[in-house]
Each structure stands twice: as C-alpha cells, then as structure tokens.
C-alpha cells in the first residue's frame, strides 16, 4: 500500500477521517495553514478589508476565506505533495470546497475524483449516494492517484461498525471491502502524522479573484436564515406557543428556526419564518419538525430536506410517514435534553461546516 494524503480543513484534526484513511494505507494528514494566504499586494486596496474581517467566534474554526475562494492554490500544493509522497489516494472534506480542490487536483494529475463518498474499500472502491440519496453507487477509479471527498458520516459509521454493527440511518453505509477490524484498531499519533500543507502565493487566474468583504451572516436573532441554514428546526402547533425549547436546540446546533402555518397564524412566529406550501420551500441537510403534524401543505415546503426528524405527541401524525427519525414524545422535554447532551459532547470535533455548504 502507498501513502494516503488526508486534507484536514480543521487544525484540530479529524481523527475519524484519518482512521478511514488508515484502512487504506499509511496516512499523512495535511493541515491548511492558519495564517493569511494573501499579502497586502493582493488585497483589493489596503484597508478596505480590514474592518469587515470576521473573526470566527470563539471555539469555532473556519477556513480562511482567501483559501476558500481559491481551491486551485490548494490543489497545486496537493499535487506537489502527491508527487513528494508518491501518494496513491487523496482524501478531501466533503462539500463544495473539497469538491473544487478535488476537481482541480484531478485536472493537474490526470486523475479522477469521486465526491461525497460514504465508504472506501481497501481496493479503493468508493460507495457514494447519488440521485439525491435515493441510490447508492459503487465506483472505482483508474489513474495514478485516486481522489475522494469524504462524508464524515461514513467514517463515523465505519468506526462504530465493529461495536454496534452499524445503524440503518440514511446517509451512512457499511464499509465494504475493509473489515471493521482493520479500521478500529488503527492507532494514530496526530502530532507526528499531521503536517502543514505549504501553500504558494496564488498564480493566475486565481490571483484575479479578490475578496471585497467578509461580513457576519446572521439574522437579527443571531441565527442563520432559512435559505442558508444546513439545519432548520421548525415549531408547530404542538409547541403551544412556547418556542424556547426550539430556539434552545437551534442555537446549540447553529440552526435556523422555522415555523408551520399554524404557528404563524397563531402569532407565535413571524410570517417570514413560515415553511410550507404557502411559505418558504427549504432544502436543508436536516429538518427537525417540532410539534408539527405534517399536513401536506407543510410537507410541500420541507420534504426536500436530506434528513427529517419529527417530534410529536401523536403517534399517527402524518409527519412520521416521511421522517427518517420520528420521536413520539414531548418536545418541551426532548429538545432541551438534546441541547444539553450536545453541550456534553462539546469535546467532540467535527469538520467545519462554515464554508462548505
């Protein structure tokens, strides 16, 4: 087996993705530099950026916007690393940034890239959901170096595969080819395996792209808007008008708050937050319907969500028919308890979603 390069978009590293790489061969973790990529000569005009720069909130790491908009620079650096390490595969974070880096790296290397894989076998056969998650394909790559963008979920389920025998959640899949045993037992010493990826100053045409401003992007509530949130938690009639549990979990997840028509009609939520036939149509990664029975009018606005969780007291609520996870119970207990559980998990690290929508 050859070397496997894993691009980490988080300096705190990503053990799960490293473990997945480990099942394939020896892993070299590559971290992006934390410092600014461009010097003043590349900034549009001195001073114009300064005040607008958004300092990431404490505890949150986000990719340098200068890197984010120039995936080609990362791809170039990776191509050099591939040559240097004679790598057989490159693993990149799933999402737009990872896909773009992969696409340009593939072009440089004359290789192919598979995006959003959920598992990779030792023979470098990748499992990838397609057709909006309604089908799973298995693909292999020819060419000198295989490039994948990896969904975090895959690594997680592969890690747990040995112990819990996997879950049947959509979006995760068992790891074909590589047995769980070869996965779970791979010890990693982060400090020795992770090195910084040296980025060159951007060449043309990437240099022609310049940032004008970076601004915080949150609503007055401090929450993201319905259009851009990866997670939406919507409140319905079942909240009885008390939206605090919904907001509590939303803030724990950095999620947007939505509402059903019933909640809007009752005056509990602003009409701009309405999801449904007569409100907004949303397609988030995850939609949590809290106290919403799921009339067809509401479903019309949210069934494009990749994952749906429903919490309702009524076990016959139609929303359960389309939910990936349905919870029959009191949202006023479950939502705050979940938020608390997430706080306890605070030490756990995941990939940054900041710029990867």
């Amino acid at each position, binding site marked *: 087996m050859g070397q496997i390069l894993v691009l980490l978009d988080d300096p705190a590293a990503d053990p799960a993705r490293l473990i997945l790489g480990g099942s394939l061969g020896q892993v070299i973790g590559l971290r992006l530099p934390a410092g600014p990529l461009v010097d003043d000569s590349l900034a549009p005009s001195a001073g114009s950026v300064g005040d607008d720069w958004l300092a990431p909130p404490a505890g949150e790491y986000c990719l340098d916007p200068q890197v984010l908009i120039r995936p080609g620079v990362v791809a170039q650096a990776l191509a050099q690393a591939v040559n240097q390490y004679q790598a057989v595969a490159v693993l990149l974070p799933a999402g737009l940034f990872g896909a773009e880096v992969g696409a340009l790296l593939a072009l440089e290397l004359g290789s192919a890239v598979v995006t959003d894989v959920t598992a990779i076998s030792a023979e470098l056969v990748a499992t990838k959901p397609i057709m909006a998650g309604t089908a799973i394909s298995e693909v292999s790559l020819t060419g000198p170096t295989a490039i994948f963008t990896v969904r975090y979920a895959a690594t997680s389920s592969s890690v747990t595969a040995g112990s819990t025998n996997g879950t049947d959640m959509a979006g995760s899949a068992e790891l074909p080819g590589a047995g769980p045993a070869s996965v779970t037992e791979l010890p990693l010493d982060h400090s020795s395996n992770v090195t910084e990826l040296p980025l060159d100053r951007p060449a043309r045409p990437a240099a022609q792209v310049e940032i004008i401003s970076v601004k915080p992007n949150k609503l007055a509530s401090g929450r993201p808007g319905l259009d851009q949130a990866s997670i939406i938690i919507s409140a319905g009639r079942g909240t009885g008008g008390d939206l605090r549990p919904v907001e509590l979990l939303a803030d724990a997840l950095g999620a947007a708050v939505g509402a059903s*028509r019933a909640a809007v009609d009752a005056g509990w939520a602003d*009409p701009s937050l309405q999801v449904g*036939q*007569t409100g907004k149509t949303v397609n988030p990664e995850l939609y949590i319907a809290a106290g919403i029975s799921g009339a*067809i009018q509401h479903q019309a606005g949210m069934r494009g969500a990749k994952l749906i969780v429903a919490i309702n007291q009524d076990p016959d609520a139609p929303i359960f028919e389309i939910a990936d996870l349905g919870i029959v119970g009191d949202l006023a207990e479950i939502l705050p308890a979940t938020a608390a559980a997430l706080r306890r998990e605070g030490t756990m690290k995941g990939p940054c979603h900041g710029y990867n929508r």
Partner: protein
Amino acid sequence: MNWFGLVGLTVTAVGWTCLALRVGGFVHLFRAGPAELPGSRRGQPWRRTAAMLHEFLAHRRLSRKPLVAVAHWLTMMSFLVLVATLAQATGQLFNPRFELPWLGHWLIYNWLTELLAWAGLGGIVVLVAVRLWAGRARLGPASRFFGSHQWRARYVEATILAVVILVLWLRGIESVLAGPAGWARFATTAWIGRLYPPDLSDAVLAAWVSTLALAKILVSYAWMVVVSLTPTMGVAWHRFLAFPNLWTGRDPNGRPALGGLEALVVDGRVVDLEDPALDESVLERLGAGWTADLTWRDRLALATCTECGRCQEVCPVWQCVTATLSGPAASDTAVPPATAAVATSAAAPGGPAASDTAAPLATAAPASTTLSPKLLVSALRDHVFGSEPEPSPLVGGDSKWAITPEVLWACTTCGACTAACPVGVEHVDQIIELRRHQVLVAADFPAGLGTTFRNLERRSNPWGMLPRQRLDWAKGLSFEPPVLGQTIESLDQVDYLFWVGCAGAFDERGQTTARALAELLHQSGVSFAVLGEQAACCGDPARRTGNEALFAALASANADYLNQAGAKRIIVTCAHCRNTLANEYSQFGGHYQVIHHTELLADLINQGRLVPRNLGDGIVQVTYQDPCYLARHNRQSAAPRRLLGSIPGLRLTEMAQSGDRTNCCGGGGGRMWWEDSGPRLGQRRFEQAAMTGADMLATACPFCHIMLADAAATAGSDLPVRDLAELVLAAVSPSGQMAEV
C-alpha cells in the same frame, strides 16, 4: 323673444350639444376596445331583452335591500316619465299656459306625472337618507360608500330632488292658471296653487311659471352638462348605460357572470396557446394589461358602475379587513398590515381620483392595498377615461390609477361582488383578465404561485405530490375500488366515475372525505370507478390565477382521457372540480354530467338506499358552510340542506351569510396555494360559524374544509369541521360515531 326663452334655449342647446358630444365620445371609446368573442355578448337577443326588462322592472338584484329597491324603482320611473316635463317647461318659457300637444290633455298622463312626481320625491328622499345613513363617516371603510365619489352622488340626488319639487310646484301654479276646469288633471297638486293668495293676477302667476320653468331647465341642463363633462360619473350615467350593459351580460338569461370562465380571447378570437403559428403581436395582448386591452364591454361596464358599493360590502376580503378595523374585534388576532394601510390612506386627505371633495374616503381607492371590487372598477375606469401622456400598465406601474398586485391577487373569485352588482359589472371575469396578463405576458405574480405552477406542470397536482401516491387515499377502505386502466378498462362497466380530485387524493382531510364517500357508495350499491395515476388536477388553480396555458394543457389532456374512457357521469367532492368539469371542459370537448357528492347522497337517502340514524357524540346543532363554487357559482345549496335534514335529531343553524350569499373561506381563486400578510378570511368565517353555537361545522368542499379546520386549530377551538360525507357515514353506521381524522 323674451330673455327667459333666450336663456332657456341657449342652455338647452348647450346641454344637448354636450350630451351628444359625450355620447359620441362614449361610442368612440367603446368601439376602440377590442372585440368580444362573436355571439358571446349579442347572441339570443330576445332572451337578452327579456332578461334586461325583467331586471329593469323587477329589480331582482336590488331587492336584497327592499327599501332601496322600492325607492330606486320609483325614482327611476319618475325620471323616465318626467322627461316630458322638460319639454313642457321649455314651452312654458314662451307661453306660461303651454301644454304638451295631445299628451297634455290626456288625463292618464297627468295623473301618471303627478303620481310619479310624488313617488319620485318620496323615493329620492329615501335614497338621500339611505346614503347619508349608510355613508356616515363614523362607519369608515365598513360603509359600502367608502371610497365612492359621494359629492357626485349628492349632486345627482340634489338634481332629482330639485326637479321633482319644481315639477310639483309648477303643476300647482298651472292648476290655478287652468282654472276649475283643470281640477281633475291636478288632483294632487292643486293644493300647492291654493297656497298662493287667490287675488294674484294671471300675469304674476305667469311670471312664476316662467321663472320656475327656467329654474327647472337650468337645473336639468346643468346636470346634463356636468355629467357630459364627467364621463366617470357612473352614478349619473348608469341611468342610460345600465340598459346596454345588462343586455350585453355574459349570460343571455341575465344571470350574474359566474360559474365557468370564458376562454382566453384576443380580438374576438379564442387564442390557442399551443398553436405554433400564433402571431407575436397576439402574445403581447393576452389578458388585460393595458387600457387598450379592455374590450368594448369592459369599458361599457366600467362606465356603468354607480359606485353603490354593494360589491364592496359583500367582498370577503374587504369585510375581513374592515371588521378588524371598526368595532370591537371579535378575535384577538393581530390586525393584518393591509388593514393599517387602509386606515392610513383613508385618513390622508387629497387623492388621485378625487375630482370632487369626497376626498378622505375616495382617496383610499387606487392607492389602497386592500381589495374592494368597487375601487378596482373605479381604478380601471379612471384608466379608460383618464388621459395620460404615456399608456401605463393597469396593474403595478407608476400610474396614479394602477391597481396594486396586493389588490389583484387578494381576490378569491368567490363571486359575491358579481352576484350583488345591480348593473351587471362582471368583476370576477375582469380580475381574471388582469391576472391572465400578469401571468401570461408580464410573468409578474406572487412567488408562491410559481411553485404551484411548477407542481402542476411536473406532477399534475398543485401540491407537487407524486402520481404514484394518487391512490393512497384508498388505503384502509373496506373494499377495493375499481381503478380505470387497472381493474376495469372502460367506464361503461360502472354507473359513475368518482373523480377523487387532488385534495381527495393527497390532503389528509380530503382523503377522509373521499374514503367516506367511497364507503357510502359501496354500501348503497352504487357502482363506480376511480382514476389511477393518470388522474390530474382539473385545472381550477391554474385558470383562476390566470395561467390559461397551464389550464388548457391540463383540461385538454383530462378531457381527452375522460372521453376515451367513456366518462358520462362524474361524481366529485370538490366544488371547484365540479365547477371546472361541468362548466369549462366543454371548451375542450368534454361534456359530462357532473354530480356533487352532496347531491348524490341526498338522492340516495331519498331513495332509502342510505338510512341515516342519530349522530353520536352529542351532535345536535350543525351549521353549514356553503362553498362559493357550489352555492353561488352553481346555485346548489338545497341538496346539502336536504341531506342535513334527513339525519334525525340534527338541527341546522344557519350563519348570517349562507346559501348563495355565503361568505368565502379564503381558499378559492388559487388563494389556497400561496400566502401573504393579507387578511385571514378563513379565521373570520370560522368565527362566524362558531358564533352560531353549533356543535359542528359542516362543509362540502375540501378547500373550505382545509381553510376552516386550520382556522379552528388556530383559534384553539374544539368545534369540529367535517365534510357532509363524513356526517352521513357516521349517521348510517351503527354507532353513529365519526371516524377519527
């Protein structure tokens, strides 16, 4: 030639000249409008004439307000007969003893004149009083006269009052001049003459006659000049224009223009949007987007509007807003933003269309963001008669008369306005024409509608559900309903096609209704089949929102499929499907007998094939929401009541607005499919239902069902909202219990 004669003849000449010029102007303006579909406005002339005369003599539509109807009838008749007194007065300028040749000595004419002068006096006094009372400022937008040009109306009323008084006064003096021989002719006015000192000389009396005659002539011709200079003064012009307007109504039998809509027509020809050879210039002129698109009949109708406000008074959108505005709010719901807009614009004096000083009320008109059919008609009329350097769009745009999109898209096409209009203005058709332009040409409409259109286009239903889910509603039935194309090949094998409709197929409440009806049909041995995945929306949401292209695609495909399957009798549970299939599919070669389920169930009960017993759950009092598209558009309000009456122990408690005067749930006209910050009609209607104290709110249309049940849930009320089919199913079941929804 005396001075009186000179002045009198001059004003006569001026008056008639102005009138002639204006009539010419009207004719020119009407003729400039595009043609209507040939025959659609002039076919069956005898029927039309009969219908017009019926309306004219019987005041059918005005009779909703009996006092006003009587007063108006008398005033109207007095105007017709008293025209002759104008000629009389003209003669009296030259000869105070002038009498109309032949007519003047005819006793019956004299009595008729006297009778109608007094009747006209009484009538106009009542009308003045009604306008003062119903238009009192305290009512604000709740008044039907809110936004009308009140001073124009008062001027017209004052003219009539002055004329009838002058006629009576003149006759009083004439009776003195005529001496005892004329007593019979002046039976009711001679006493006026006796008020004059008996020793007055004939010369003095003659001077009185000439003076009063001149006054009468001045009053009459001043009116003629004023109205000729003010073509937008429908309150005066309806005296003339109502006749041709009623005669050219869409329905030759004189019924309001409701039910099915007319096809899309440009220059008198139906436009086939599938025709690849369609001229590019025609594509610019679909629907009504500019003044030039308004047909001659549109223009005639706009000029006829008297601003009486009957349409405004019954408009559910306007009612909903004004009810929240004035009086103690029956609900604790927040005042919708549109309400505030009316309030502020009403308070701000000085406005666009206000050519007289009725200012504060009239100004709300075009600038308003709340739909009033009357103000919409006024705005269009101002477009037609106003002069602007550049033509401006009727909807949106910068014109001071432009109709705002909020107003245009607020309409639920419930038809209350059209049914109430005494002079035959066809508001719904007009609004649809405006919407057609917005959708087909301008592509400018509420964003939510775009989703509905896409869903209809891709999935053939407004919710965007998948065709393979079409039969989900039938899960849980006690039997397998035959499916056309699956279990049976032709509809000849069954009595009826049950057109389940999109709500019946996909909406939870609609599904319950569909299942209830299927069980009832099965129990009573009625053979029927349903459509499978080929079923598609009937097209009502597309047509009522102006998307004629989408409607034509859906309707022609459906009609072809139904014809091929041999459909003859179709049962529907949706009032909108019923209307569209029965009244609009003939435009696509589909001719069916479409039966609403309430009708069929009432018949089955009547025939003893279904035997209702007591309802369980302590349901005693039921109130019934008449769906607009059943009760008003299709005049079917008896069957549901017969059906309710057949359930022992059940009492129907009617809401204030019921039957063909029902109040809209807010779901029609495509309003089911998108939402804005406008008024919540369903909530208001639900409050009205709750106020009856009934144990249950029954309805017979899935749209009403959805809107009202949503409103019930919002209000936190436990008043159940059910379809009549569910009621009947419960009543025929041993327990009398209703199934859980």
